[in-house]
Every structure is written in C-alpha cells, then in structure tokens.
C-alpha cells in the first residue's frame, strides 16, 4: 500500500484569495504607474517653480523612477500581509474546534475527532462529492455471524441469529458430520492467532474481521480454536482435543477471492484442503456430482439481506497429489518473475472438485445514524458515490438500507457491466441515454459499476464515463481496487468538483490522499486511513457535523476575514492615495510609519481575528436546513462580486474619512500629525463599527476584542504622545481635549456607517438571502416554512438543453448572487448534477426538474 507523499492541499477559498490578491496587485501596479506619471508631470510643471522644495535643475535619468517607487512603497500596504497570518491563526482555531467538539467524540471508544490538516477546514463547507468506502465506513465493521446454510439446511432464518438456532445446536451435539466439517473449516481455515490471557479466556487476533467472526461463531458452537503453536493447531470440540498440522496456506488475494489451507489431521494423517471464499470463486469449482443450487439460492437470499456471504468447502487430498502439488507450490513461491500470478495458477490446480459444505452469512451492521446523515448531506446538495470492494448485491443492499439509493419505483439503478470492451461500451451508452432522459424526471437515478467494467470504461471510454459521472448524483462502484478508487477521485476532481473521500482501511488511503479532503474513520481496520487523512472521525455520522457545522462556519468566517483584511488595507491605502493629490503627488505618507504598522498588525487584526467565533446561524438551524450549505458550495460569500462590494466600501469610507478630516481640520488646524491622527482615528472607529455590524453573533470575547481594541488604540497613542522623543509627542492629548476632534470622529462614523447600515437593512429585509431568512426566523421565532414555500418555476422544455451541452464544458455555477435579476440564483451545474432542491435552484433549468425533496 504505497502511500507516497501527498501533495499539499490548497483550499478553493485560498485559491480565490490568491486570485483576488493578484487582482489587487494589478490594481496596485496601475495606481503606482498612474501616480508615478502624474508625480513626474507635477514635478516638472509645478514643483520646479516651488523654490522651497529646491528640486535640482537636472538629475540623472533614473530620477524618473523615484516617484513611482515611492508610490510603490506607499501602496505596498494595499495587499494585506497580515491576512496570511490571520488566516493561519483562525484556521488552526477551526481545527481545534473540531478536536474539541464533544459531540464528535465516539462514545464507544472515546475517540475524539481530530483535524490533522489544519489548513483546509473551509473546503469542508464546499464539498460537492463524497466518495465513501462501505465496510467500516458506513458499516460498523463489527462482523457478526448471523446465518448459515449447511448442506442445504438453512439455520438462523427464523430468529435471525444462527447461534441461537436450536436446530443448529442440536445438529452440533448430535455430531452430524457435515456440520462438524463446516465448523472445522470455520475454525481453522484462516490466519487467526488465538491468544490466551491469564484468566484463561481466549482472545483472537485476526487481520480480517470476517475470519474473526467465523472463529468466534465456531467457538460458540463448541468448536473452539484453542491454540496455534507453530504449524500445529489445536481445536477443542466438546471435550475432545483435535490437532491439525498446517501444511500450506494459500493466501487470500483480491483476484482469487478465496483462501485455503492444507492441513493434516494429526490423528489419522488425513490431508485436507479447506477453502473459503466468495461464491463465484468457490461454487464453480464444486465437484461434478454435487448439487450447488441450494447454495446459490442461499447466497442470493443472504445478499438480498445485505449480509456478507462466504462459501466453505473442503476436499480430501491423496498423499501423492499433495506431494506433487507441494513441489510446484514451492517452486512457484520461489519464482522471481510474476510470482503472484504463478502462485495463483498453482493454487488453482489444487482448488477444484471441492465438496461444498455450506454458506455463512455475516452481518456487518450499519453504523448509527448513517441513513440520516446521508439524507441530510444529500439535502445539502452533496452527491454520494460508494466505492467498495464488496460484491455488487451486498453493496446495493447496503446502499438501499442507508438511503443511498431509493427502491423502485422512486429510484432507478442502472447497471454497467460487461467483460469486453464492446459490452461495456454498449452498457455505458445505454445507461447514458437513460440518464439523459431521466434527468427530467423526479427520480433517483444511480448507476452501479463493477471493477472490471470500470477498468475498461476508464481506459477506453473516459469521456463518456466522465459525462456519466457528471450526470449522476449517485453511483455504486463495487469490486474496485484502491487505485481505481483514487482514479475515480481524480476523475471527479478533473471536472472541477470538490471531493471528499471517506474511508477506514488501508485500501482507502490512496483515495483519501487523492481527494481534496480525506476523512478517515478511526475504526477497527487500524489507523492507517485515519493517519493519512486530513480529518479523522470516530463514526460516519460525525461527517454531518463536520461538514455542516465546522465546514460551513469555517467557510463563512474565512470569507469575512479575508475580505475584511482587504477592506482595511485598501481603506488606509486609498486615504494615502487621496492625500498624495493634495501633497503635490510627491508620495508623502499621511500616517507615520509606526501608525501604519500598528494599523495593519494590531488595530485591525485583533478585532477581526475574533470573527473566528462568529456564527451566522445556530447549529440546529443549519442541521434542519442543510440546503443552506449551498451558499458555501457555490462560493457565494467570497467571490469577485462580494469582493467588489468590500472594495467599494473601502473606497467610500476612505472618501468619508479623508474629506471630513481635511475639511474639519483645515486652515489653522491643518497640522500634519494632528490631521493624520484624526484620519487614523476615523479609520479605527469605522472599522470597529464595520466589524460589529458584520458580526452575526456577538459574544463577550468579540465585544472585548472590538471595543477593547478601540480603547487600546487610544491607550497606545497616549503612551506615544507622552514620550517627548516620539514624533507625535502630546498630539493625542491635544486632540482628545478638543471638542472638534470628537465631533469630527462621530461625524466620520455616522457618515460612513449610515449608508452601510441602511443598505444592509434594506437587503436584509427586502432582498433577503436564504441565510437572512433563516436568521430572522431563528431569532424572531417567525415561520421557517417560508423557505420551502417558494414554488418551483415551470419546467422548461428539456430537449433544448441537453443536446447542445458537451461533456467538456466545465461546470458553470454562478457564485455571484444577483438578487436583482431573480430571486433564485442562476446557478446551473452542468447536466443538473447536484440540483437536489427546488428551493435554491428554481430557475436552474435542468435541475429544477430533478428534485429529490419532493419525493422524500
């Protein structure tokens, strides 16, 4: 299981921030060039006349660069450096919140959730596809022997538990040879090691949970596997002890799908081949005379119930036959080339003419809350793919039982199968056709594909398969290998979807590393997956909380924090730019360097850091209305449009601060340090109010940080004003004594915040986003029903849309909320993938039709 070195992951929101930073950088360059040119022109036309500036008559040519460079220095604060530090800090806090979350502690094992990767919490809120393993992820991976069929007799069908079946116990005590053989195979055909504890109990150490379950079940039926001493196995049946010598172990591989042991009965020197494996790997090799029909039926019946089946078989070997084969096996074992293949071939020679003993059925129960979790997350617009190594029937049954797919007639499951290219192609085309047609129907369509067909599809029909992947919200891939799991993740990522892979075993590691977010369940199959993953949780059901609560909050908070960081940097930078127009475009800084530094790293960083505690909606509301995650998925809180809003706000505030400062402090008051402090105070006051207004829930910590910060601004400046050596000696004391200072500051606050408050209130009340509606409902106790009451718009004609779209077309979701155009966003994921609810996407033409909510 080569884990390799995973690439560092970059969240979508970080990528967006990088893009915006790039845009601001370009803006900065433009500003610098324009101001640089203006500065040089002003210098040549005006400044040379100003004798007091004393420009030298002729300078070297590079003097032309001095003014642009000064502006570059002045504008360098436009890109907030502090954003990186702030983001890292809050991100580690998000991760800590996940670690600390009491509701995500697995009560059984006491395992808390853990965020290994502290940098990608925001991506959790933007997940679109979840690829999940089955065994151990959806199920508990706590195997319990439930039923069996021995020699055509079904046990455990009535009670649902073979171990409580009186008939089986009777059969055991009466010593029926079939049953004894069956139990023998259960007990010793494995690689389990029994460990005796001091108290005399036997504790089994098994690699495979199935084997463990079988050995335990055998022990309950009085066939106790007592000891393993080198090659000698000791079994206690009732009172007697039987010893076997293990001659060979034909190990399990996922290709062979069976394992065997060759043992010698130490009493009568009989050599036996004991085999267990998947039905298709055992039943075809039954000895010619045997009727296998009953076993096929048993397998069918059990897998319908979602049970894992194993067929048990044995054969007596003649001494010569074993010796001959043994030589071949040794030879094969020592080959260097194609060893695995050779061994498989050799094993094949022995594993034939088997006498089928029976079928075991092992239950792997679903974890608590899995169906609810899947349902909630699907309502949140997340698509699920199940990737499992299990057989198709079992996978489908599990999928049905955990709401993964709906039973007929609501749902429709399309199978892609085939052994050859042609068959797979036909099957794929058929499924695609059906998919295209049924996207219009309110029906759950899912497809199931097995490992073989997947291999062919990925190799030869990648394009068609990609289209299928985009069309289908649900898929079941069975019998897939770890590398195929990773390939599927890769496929979805290549369509620009954010994927989350969740698994528990070593075979999920590659998928977990490949996906945007890897979640490991620290379960029974060891911690391999949990270690490789970005997040490890104890149970699948915590995924709901991880995504809807932690992921969503993280996204919202980061969206605010990053845009706010740009806002405050731009604010101060715009003031500097405006000031340069009244200072002869010479690049004078209005603020002293100390204030500038403190502004970025202190005055404005502390208040915004506590926005990491902000909660726009309560956890309960989010859980009740998982659809609200859509805002995060579509990236609606941080995109060029929202950023433009913040950009405009900083421009507006800069104008307010600048105009009011220079007019209120004109003429005899226009002393540099004083004007500078008035403008800075204006900025600090404004930003305190902006943070307060944009905070959805004010805790005591936030109040302290925001208003304490304002107080500390005065405190710090008073300290500096008390130092005779500092440039701003006595300035702050003088200002605070002047009534005009306070009237100016309050004027700035009212003029700056009034329109912002008015606009926010107007949007909130008359053009509310769904988040606002929920907020109002939550806080005022109003009806939340209005959310669902929005009627879907009439469905457009279908043919029009499907045909012109091509697979290569990237998904086209509009992250920009355009409330004025229509209430419902024009989000159109291509092919209607992920359009689960009418609620958000009433106009999304393709998807509106494909509603799941209505069915449920």
């Amino acid at each position: 299981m080569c884990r390799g070195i995973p690439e560092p992951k970059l969240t979508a929101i970080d990528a967006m921030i990088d893009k915006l930073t790039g845009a601001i950088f370009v803006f900065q360059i433009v500003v610098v060039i324009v101001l640089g040119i203006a500065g040089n022109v002003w210098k040549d036309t005006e400044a040379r006349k100003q004798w007091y500036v004393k420009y030298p008559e002729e300078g070297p040519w590079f003097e032309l660069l001095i003014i642009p460079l000064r502006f570059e220095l002045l504008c360098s604060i436009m890109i907030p450096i502090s954003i990186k530090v702030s983001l890292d800090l809050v991100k580690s806090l998000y991760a800590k919140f996940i670690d600390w979350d009491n509701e995500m502690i697995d009560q059984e094992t006491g395992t808390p959730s853990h965020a290994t990767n502290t940098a990608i919490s925001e991506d959790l809120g933007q997940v679109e596809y979840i690829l999940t393993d089955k065994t151990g992820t959806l199920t508990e991976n706590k195997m319990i022997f439930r039923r069996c069929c021995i020699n055509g007799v079904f046990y455990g069908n009535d009670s649902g538990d073979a171990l409580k079946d009186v008939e089986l116990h009777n059969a055991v005590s009466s010593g029926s040879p079939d049953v004894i053989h069956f139990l023998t195979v259960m007990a010793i055909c494995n690689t389990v090691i029994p460990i005796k504890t001091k108290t005399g109990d036997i504790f089994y150490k098994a690699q495979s949970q199935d084997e463990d379950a079988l050995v335990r079940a055998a022990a309950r039926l009085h066939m106790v596997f007592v000891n393993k001493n080198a090659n000698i196995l000791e079994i206690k049946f009732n009172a007697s002890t039987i010893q076997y010598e293990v001659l060979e172990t034909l190990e399990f591989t996922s290709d062979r799908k069976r394992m065997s042991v060759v043992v010698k009965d130490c009493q009568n020197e009989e050599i036996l081949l004991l085999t267990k494996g998947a039905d298709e790997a055992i039943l075809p090799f039954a000895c010619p005379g045997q009727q296998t029909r009953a076993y096929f039926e048993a397998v069918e019946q059990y897998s319908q119930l979602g049970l894992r089946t194993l067929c048990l078989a044995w054969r007596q070997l003649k001494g010569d036959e074993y010796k001959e084969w043994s030589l071949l096996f040794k030879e094969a074992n020592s080959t260097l080339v194609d060893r695995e293949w050779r061994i498989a071939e050799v094993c094949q020679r022995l594993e034939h003419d088997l006498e089928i003993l029976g079928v075991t059925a092992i239950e792997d129960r679903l974890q608590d809350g899995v169906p609810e979790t899947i349902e909630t997350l699907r309502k949140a617009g997340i698509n699920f793919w199940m990737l499992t190594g299990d057989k198709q029937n079992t996978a489908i049954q599990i999928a049905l039982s955990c709401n993964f797919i709906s039973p007929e007639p609501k749902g429709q499951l399309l199978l892609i199968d085939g052994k050859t290219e042609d068959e797979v192609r036909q099957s794929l085309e058929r499924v695609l056709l059906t998919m295209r047609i049924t996207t219009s129907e309110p029906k759950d369509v899912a497809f199931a594909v097995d490992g073989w067909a997947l291999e062919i599809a990925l190799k030869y029909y990648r394009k068609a398969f990609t289209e299928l992947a985009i069309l289908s919200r649900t898929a079941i891939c069975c019998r897939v290998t770890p590398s195929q799991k990773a390939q599927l993740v890769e496929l979805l990522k290549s369509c620009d979807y954010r994927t989350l892979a969740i698994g528990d075993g070593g075979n999920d590691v590659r998928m977990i590393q490949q996906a945007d977010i890897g979640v490991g369940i620290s379960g029974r199959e060891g911690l391999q997956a949990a270690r490789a993953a970005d997040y490890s949780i104890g149970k699948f059901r915590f995924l709901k909380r991880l995504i809807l609560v932690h992921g969503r909050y993280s996204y919202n908070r980061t969206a605010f924090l990053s845009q706010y960081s740009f806002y405050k940097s731009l604010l101060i930078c715009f003031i500097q730019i405006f000031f340069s127009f009244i200072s002869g475009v010479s690049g004078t800084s209005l603020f002293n360097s100390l204030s500038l530094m403190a502004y970025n790293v202190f005055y404005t960083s502390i208040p915004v850091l506590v926005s990491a505690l902000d909660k726009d909606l309560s956890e309960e509301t989010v859980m009740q209305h998982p659809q609200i995650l859509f805002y995060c998925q579509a990236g609606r809180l941080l995109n060029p449009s929202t950023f433009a809003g913040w950009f405009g706000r900083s421009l507006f505030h800069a104008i307010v601060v600048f105009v009011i400062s220079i007019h209120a402090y004109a003429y005899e008051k226009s002393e540099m340090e004083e004007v500078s402090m008035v403008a800075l105070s204006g900025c600090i006051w404004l930003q305190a109010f902006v943070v307060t207004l944009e905070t959805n829930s004010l805790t005591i910590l936030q109040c302290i940080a925001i208003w304490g910060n304002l107080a500390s601004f005065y405190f710090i400046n008073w300290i500096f004003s008390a130092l005779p050596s500092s440039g701003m000696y006595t300035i702050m004391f003088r200002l605070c004594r002047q009534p005009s200072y306070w009237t100016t500051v309050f004027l700035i606050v009212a003029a700056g915040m009034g329109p912002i408050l008015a606009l926010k209130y107007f949007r909130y009340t008359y053009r509310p986003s769904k988040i606002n509606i929920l907020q109002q409902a939550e806080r005022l106790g109003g009806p939340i029903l209005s959310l669902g009451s929005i009627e879907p718009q009439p469905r457009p004609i279908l043919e029009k849309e499907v045909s012109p779209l091509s697979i290569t077309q990237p998904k086209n979701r509009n992250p920009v909320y355009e409330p004025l155009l229509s209430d419902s966003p024009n989000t159109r994921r291509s092919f209607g993938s992920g359009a689960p609810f009418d609620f958000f996407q009433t106009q999304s033409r393709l998807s509106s039709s494909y509603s799941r909510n209505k069915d449920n």
Partner: protein
Amino acid sequence: MKAIYLNVAWKDATSLLSQIDTEFSTINKFTQQNLPACKPVLTPAWVILTFLLIGTIFIPIGLVSLHASRSVVEIVDRYDIDCVPEQFKSNKLGYIKDSSYPKNCSRTLKGIRWLKDLFSCFLVMLSLRFSAVKILPTDAVQIKKETLEGTLGFQLLLHGNFTAPLGAKALWLVAIEPIAWFLGFVMVNRYMKAPIYIYYQLDNYYQNHRRYVKSRSDQQLLHGLGSNKTSLCKPEQSNNGLPIVPCGLVAWSLFNDTYKFIRGKSELNVNRKNIAWKSDRDHKFGKHVYPFNFQSGTLIGGGKLNSSVPLSDQEDLIVWMRTAALPSFRKLYGRIEENLHANDVIVVNLMNNYNTYSFGGKKKLVLSTSSWLGGKNDFPGFAYIFVGSYCIVIAIVFMLLHVKYSRNTHVGYN
C-alpha cells in the same frame, strides 16, 4: 497496540478535560463554540429608531457648531498682489527677489469677502433700515443694529441712502424681518472680542511635499551641533563644512512677512509670545541651540533668525516647522489682546518679503476670534446637518417601506 494506548490516553485526556470543563464551564462553552452571544437582528423598529436618533442628535449638534462657527468674526485680506507696486505688476518676481526695493505696504482691513455674506448682510441691513431704525426702534433691535454695525466694513453700506414707499416698507417688515432675524442669528457678528488671533495664510503652498517635509533634523533642533544626523536635511545641510543650524528646507524657507497694526493713531499691541506649542518649546527645540550660521550661505531662502536667541525661543520658527497637512494653511502670527469695535478702522503696515510669486501662491492676513470649536469653519456644522437630515430621510423612507411591505416581510420580493 500503540493505537490502543493512544486511545486510552485520549480517553483519559478527554475525560479529564470534561472534568475540568464542568468546573470551568466558560472554557467548555468556548471550545464547544457555545458562548452566550447577542445576536442583533436588524428589525425595522431598531433600524428606524437608530436613524431617527442619529438624526435628532446630529441636527442640533450641527446647528450649534454652525452657530459657533458663525459667531467667529474673521477678516481675511489677500495682500500679495496689491502690495506689489504698480510698476512691478508685470515682474513681481523681480520685485520680490530684489532686496533693494522697499517692501513695505499699507492695508486697510475690510470685513466682508464673500458674495453670499454680502447678500445676506444686504438683506439684514435693508430690514434694519426699515424696521428697526425707522419703524420699530426697540431695544432688541438696537442691540442687533449695533452688533451688525460692529462688523467691520459695514460702514459703506449703511451710509447709503435708501427711500421707498410706505407699502414697500410694510412688505419688508413682514417678509424680511423673520429672515433678517434668522440671518442675524447665524450671520451677524459681534465686534471682535479679545483675544484676536492674527494668522498668515498661504495658499498653494505645499508644506506637505515629501521632499520638503522630510528635510529636517529633529535631533539637531533639540541638540544642536551635538547631533550629526543631518543627512535628512538635504539639500540644505551644511555650509562651509559645518552643519547649518537649523538645517533642512523647512527651516530654510521660514516665512518672513511682518505685520504692524494701527488703530486710529496708536499702534495695537501684538503679543507674539506663546504662539508656538509649549511642548515644542520645551521638548522639541533646544534651549542651548543657537542658529549661528542660519541663512548665511549663498542661497538665501526665507526669513533669518536672531543668532543670539536660542531655538526654543524662536517661536516663529517653531510655528513654521509644524508642517501643515494641506496646501492651504494658516499659521499663528500673534494675538491682539484688545477688543476691536465696530467703528475701528485698522491699518496694517506690513513687510511683503516672502516670495510666493514664483509659484502662484497667495498670501493672506487673517484676523479672527475663536470659539469653542476653533476658528471659523462652517464645514462641521453643515456636515452634521447634512448627515442628520439624511438619517431622518432614510428613517422616513424605511418607515414608508415598512408600512408598505409589512405584510410579507419574510417572503420579500418573491
């Protein structure tokens, strides 16, 4: 196995943590993101009330500041053009640069500068002429007349002879009197009460130019030659190998026009002490630093300094070196500590030394009283009234919207 231990350890740790948590429930609430929070909702009542409140607070503040600003009497006299003799009007630069020409100039101050002031004073005066002086000679109006006439420069207008028919007089009485009262309240100045501040104002003068503002050495101003850090002072840093004290362009370009004020026949006393900040005198400019080689080089900039007076007492320099943030600024020249009356005619004898002609700058002499808000500045008052009224307008708009859409607030514009 390790994993199991780890789990056990975790278990212990978490159980311990939860124990601690129950004891310190605030920590627990923090880690569970469950701190009690105030969740403000922008309810219509709250928002409308806020805007109304801001409006009702701001408009009175605006009126008060406007009144304070209007109560300040200010006389502004631009003299840079008029003080150039007629024969040099075409060559002002040559005039100012040549020290052999006499620079003295005499000005008579007039009060009113702006058209809007002229207009409103005209109205007031008319109404006074009809109502107060001739028709209703009451005490109140008498006082008002006095205050109006107290404003310098009204003499001319008041002496004009104005006759009109009786009907017109009655009309004036009804229509103009309230306006006159209002304008009188806002506009009409008292005579100038001491202290009267004397400022010089420079327009289009960039004291905030980067090259200029950086060209000074605060260390040298305080420690004199003891500080060698004069590299900032370029290009005015040294003369004959010795650092210039005080160095730099700011000091070098010191303003050097002087003013003398004559009322009637006697000269008005101008107090030129304590015009600079005390903190500057005590802590920024050295008591033992003497400007021994100031303005002695080949290039002479602005004013000169008495080399026997330490920098801490060179208040003009200290005032000048508090650089202004705007290209139009006033600096304190001195104080007149006597009241100026309505009939006083002030003659100013000034020395027009400072060169603003090369860059088209303006020089103005300003006499101004002061209020609790400082000098005459209408901006805060008007801004407060503006902000207050837009808040009220917004409140009214929101109220109307609320009434109109109150039935379906939740659904909004679906």
